């Protein structure tokens, strides 16, 4: 049996949803160990076991939450030689990709990032990697052992298999020289809104809205629908809205029941993050905008005129 590792992110004992997604896939590929680090790690073990981890390797050392990337890299790198996993799966998330990058460089293995699936074949692993905005999929054969693959969030639906994990304490193995990028403070800015990746309806805005002063039209419609507001990279980069709202390759991946794209042209960067939506509605002034070619309903028109009317109409129907 192939030996699969899943690097499981956790926060205060709650495993990240990406960890459960990865385990659900990993259990079909071989024997699975989850590696979970930081204070609270042990509390995450039962959920990880229920999703397919046979063993959960834990270290609750505080260095894992006090310093960026390096302590986790040290711990993983210290375990690899003896355990010699065939495949290490990471989420393609900001924290995991930093650890994966350092680990792949330290081991000299390289990695495959941005994968949508991983399969076992002929004693090795093949990753499917969408590119060109998700219009094409490349099959990459991993050459290195361990193979390191980063998988996009929401690529698999997490499901339990009723397993129970053996919890194994491991040495943190954090080098003294690795306590460098010190997190001295964490500040919260976002309010208690519906989480973008969990919303049933997502309304996203792009450059076509003209300026940040018009973005409230997107938020008002999202609120009226009980959904969440998102944005394209272009307007996040322009500073209209925070990065947490970005939908796309380097932002969130969303799969809501309805996705409404207002003033978004449909750049590859964006579409790869929303093409899994059940129904896509696009509003765009430009009849040649690529987004209209993938929308179930495309409306050629001015989002600034349509959005407020739509919000009123939704409110009228919900109220009455």
């Amino acid at each position: 049996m192939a030996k699969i590792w899943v690097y499981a992110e956790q926060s205060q004992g709650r495993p990240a949803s990406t960890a459960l997604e990865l385990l659900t896939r990993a259990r079909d590929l071989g024997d699975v160990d989850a590696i979970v680090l930081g204070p609270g790690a042990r509390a995450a073990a039962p959920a990880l076991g229920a999703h397919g981890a046979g063993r959960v390797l834990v270290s609750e050392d505080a260095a894992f939450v006090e310093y960026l990337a390096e302590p986790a890299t040290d711990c993983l790198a210290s375990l690899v030689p003896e355990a010699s996993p065939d495949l290490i799966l990471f989420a393609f998330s900001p924290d995991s990709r930093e650890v994966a990058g350092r680990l792949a460089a330290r081991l000299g293995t390289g990695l495959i990032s941005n994968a949508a699936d991983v399969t076992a074949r002929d004693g090795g692993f093949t990753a499917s990697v969408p590119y060109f905005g998700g219009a094409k999929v490349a099959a990459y054969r991993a050459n290195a052992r361990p193979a390191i693959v980063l998988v996009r969030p929401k690529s698999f639906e997490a499901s339990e298999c009723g397993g129970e994990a053996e919890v194994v304490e491991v040495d943190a193995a954090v080098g003294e020289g690795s306590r460098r990028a010190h997190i001295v403070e964490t500040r919260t800015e976002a309010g208690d809104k519906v989480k973008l990746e969990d919303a049933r309806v997502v309304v996203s805005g792009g450059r076509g809205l003209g300026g940040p002063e018009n973005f409230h039209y997107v938020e008002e419609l999202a609120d009226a629908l009980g959904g969440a507001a998102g944005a394209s990279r272009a307007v996040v980069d322009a500073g209209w809205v925070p990065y947490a709202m970005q939908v796309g390759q380097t932002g969130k991946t969303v799969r809501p029941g309805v996705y409404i794209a207002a003033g978004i042209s449909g750049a590859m960067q964006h579409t790869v993050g929303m093409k899994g939506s059940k129904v896509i509605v696009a509003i765009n002034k430009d009849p040649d905008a690529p987004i209209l070619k993938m929308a179930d309903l495309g409306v050629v028109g001015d989002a600034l005129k349509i959005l407020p009317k739509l919000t009123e109409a939704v409110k009228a129907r919900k109220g009455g």
Partner: protein
Amino acid sequence: MKIVVTVKQVPDPNAPQGLDADNTIARDREVVLDPGDECGIEIGLQLKEAHGGEVVLVSMGPEKARDAIRKGLSMGADRGILITDDQLAGADALLTARTLAAAIGPESADLVICATESYDGSTGMVPPMLAELLGLPQLTFAKHVQVTDGKVTVHRQTEAGYQVVEAPTPGLITVTAGIAEPRYASLKGIMAARSKEVRVVTAGDLGVDRGQPAETVEGIADAEARSAGEVVEDDGTIGVEKIIGVLQAAKVI
């Protein structure tokens, strides 16, 4: 203070993309200095203005990537290093990081600045690899950066807000596009850039061998395509009506 900024030439993000016959992203398009790297250069220049020192641009790419370096030099950077070698064509993230590390290491920079991710690849894997190979701490997703004697502090953008992260220098930071508005090159800057040094080196000069790539392409397929549905032209009412219809059918309202 010596600052190295990595820069990359990418297909113009504002121009439509295309594929070549072999299914690779077409490279014959208009190319520009990566907009994310312009922000990195801007921060480098601001730090130099505050603390003195030198800003060095390092790029790996075809000979044409000299234009990207030249643009950064006209913004005010001091000199450039262009790593160009047919051997490096199609390099994966690790080979790119190894090559950049070989060129940047001897500079003994106090700070290495990268964009969080490139506009074309958008996977952001090179910076953490580069930090590892250079033996530096990485301070990532910076939307604010400050350097005070021997210490670099960033505001690291997160889901819910930001973290204040500090590390001793030397260090590597990745900056987000929102960190600073890149300056325009002045005419004087453009003139001055012509006489600034751009050193050209090969993989051999740096002692970098290609090594084994992380992956082998087994095949390319079309993804399950979403086909276009109905497209209507809004006349003031039909747009709203149609969208309401979709929302009702999806039982959202």
